């Protein structure tokens, strides 16, 4: 099967195989990405992040259904943590989205973090591009359940939604740096639980104190995802934000920044592996390591010399 050709024709198995090639860093992955790249740049990418158990998957399910009702096609990438000890993972986000599985306009892919610490996996951005080239109108990227500082999602998404739930801390939590700074749209899920209104007040206080705020004040919406309450309003908030960033040049700026990051990521990883390979093949790697261990030289000098030799 010609993966690229079949993917562009709308073959779901080809899309699935492409993501596997990307994720496993098969040799053909780079070639697939090269060929898919010209077909990307059309999808709207929505990031969904928040603590474990906040209801991200349930909310994704409900939002995806609402977009399907509008006739839009949906891709979902759902990330769960990989064990740092065994490399294994339980990817359990699909369990909240079973009703979407047999809808041909929806494609869901679960990914393990595989050592990445920012809430995504290293290959999430490329998997998004594969779905984009496939023709999905909207791509949801659901992060792992995050703590305070996993903010990589902002680099991958056009609009980032932070999902919070009542009862997770006091108003000091609300003034800390980290994930609360990255929300373009806030959703307070499980709003039927005690403390939802207090959390809305605290979030508003946080936003009132935000000295860096632009014209966009992130809206805060109370939602009960399991009962489909507040979904319409949430979609309106997402769409308002997308309109805002489109009209103010922010979207262009974000996508320019993303293009730069994409290039730098590929650059760093390719140069790194090229030099490593050369060092290993020539036997210099072991030689340098021994010298460094014996304190005859140091890693900084070695790298300066290697760069002088190889990157003339």
């Amino acid at each position: 099967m010609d993966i690229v050709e079949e993917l562009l024709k709308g073959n779901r198995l080809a899309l699935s195989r492409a993501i596997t090639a990307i994720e496993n860093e098969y040799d053909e992955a780079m070639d697939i990405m090269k060929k898919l790249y010209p077909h990307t740049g059309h999808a709207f990418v929505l990031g969904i992040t928040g603590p474990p158990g906040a209801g991200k998957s349930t909310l994704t399910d409900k939002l995806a259904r609402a977009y399907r009702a509008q006739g839009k096609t949906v891709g979902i990438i759902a990330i769960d943590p990989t064990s740092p000890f065994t490399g294994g993972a339980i990817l359990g986000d699909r369990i909240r989205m079973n009703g979407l599985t047999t809808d041909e306009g929806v494609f869901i892919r679960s990914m393990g973090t595989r050592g990445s610490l920012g809430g995504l996996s290293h290959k999430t951005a490329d998997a998004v591009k594969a779905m984009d080239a496939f023709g999905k109108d909207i791509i949801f990227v659901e992060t792992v359940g995050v703590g305070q500082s996993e903010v990589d999602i902002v680099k991958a998404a056009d609009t980032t939604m932070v999902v919070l739930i009542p009862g997770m801390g006091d108003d000091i939590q609300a003034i800390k740096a980290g994930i609360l700074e990255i929300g373009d749209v806030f959703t307070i899920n499980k709003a039927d639980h005690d403390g939802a209104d207090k959390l809305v007040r605290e979030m508003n206080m946080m936003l009132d104190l935000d000295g860096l705020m632009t014209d966009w004040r992130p809206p805060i919406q109370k939602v009960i995802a399991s009962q489909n309450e507040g979904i319409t309003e949430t979609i309106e908030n997402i769409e308002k934000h997308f309109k805002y960033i489109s009209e103010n040049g922010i979207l262009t700026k974000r996508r320019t920044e993303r293009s730069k990051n994409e290039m730098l990521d590929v650059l760093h990883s390719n140069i790194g592996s090229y030099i490593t390979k050369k060092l290993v093949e020539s036997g210099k790697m072991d030689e340098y390591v021994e010298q460094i261990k014996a304190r005859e030289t140091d890693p900084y000098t070695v790298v300066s010399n290697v760069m002088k030799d190889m990157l003339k």
Partner: protein
Amino acid sequence: MAKVRVLVAKPGLDGHDRGAKVVARALRDAGFEVIYTGLRQTPEQIAEAALQEDVNVVAMSILSGAHPHLFPKVVNLIREKGMDDVLIIGGGVIPETDIPALKEAGIAEVFTPGTPTGDIVEFIKANVK
């Protein structure tokens, strides 16, 4: 960097997923990526999830007695989708006398109650493509 991906699913209507969860956890500890889809899956849902997740293995658990109907159906749907190399295994309360027919239908192995989880891990490692 290839990682074994396993879909663990419960086809049919019985609501007992303790066994499936124990197996899912054991497979996780063996270093596999386990996509757990939970209870009450139709054969169509299982086959489509297997396709979207590009899994190497589909592991199904049934305690209701519907295995003679549901297991072969899942096998056929997965093969129809062009996934010829997926290893499909089953488990649950399955009478010994039913096992030959299930294997004939394309279920690679059937694990009945009392099977050490390590046996399932070893079987997957030995047979996965």
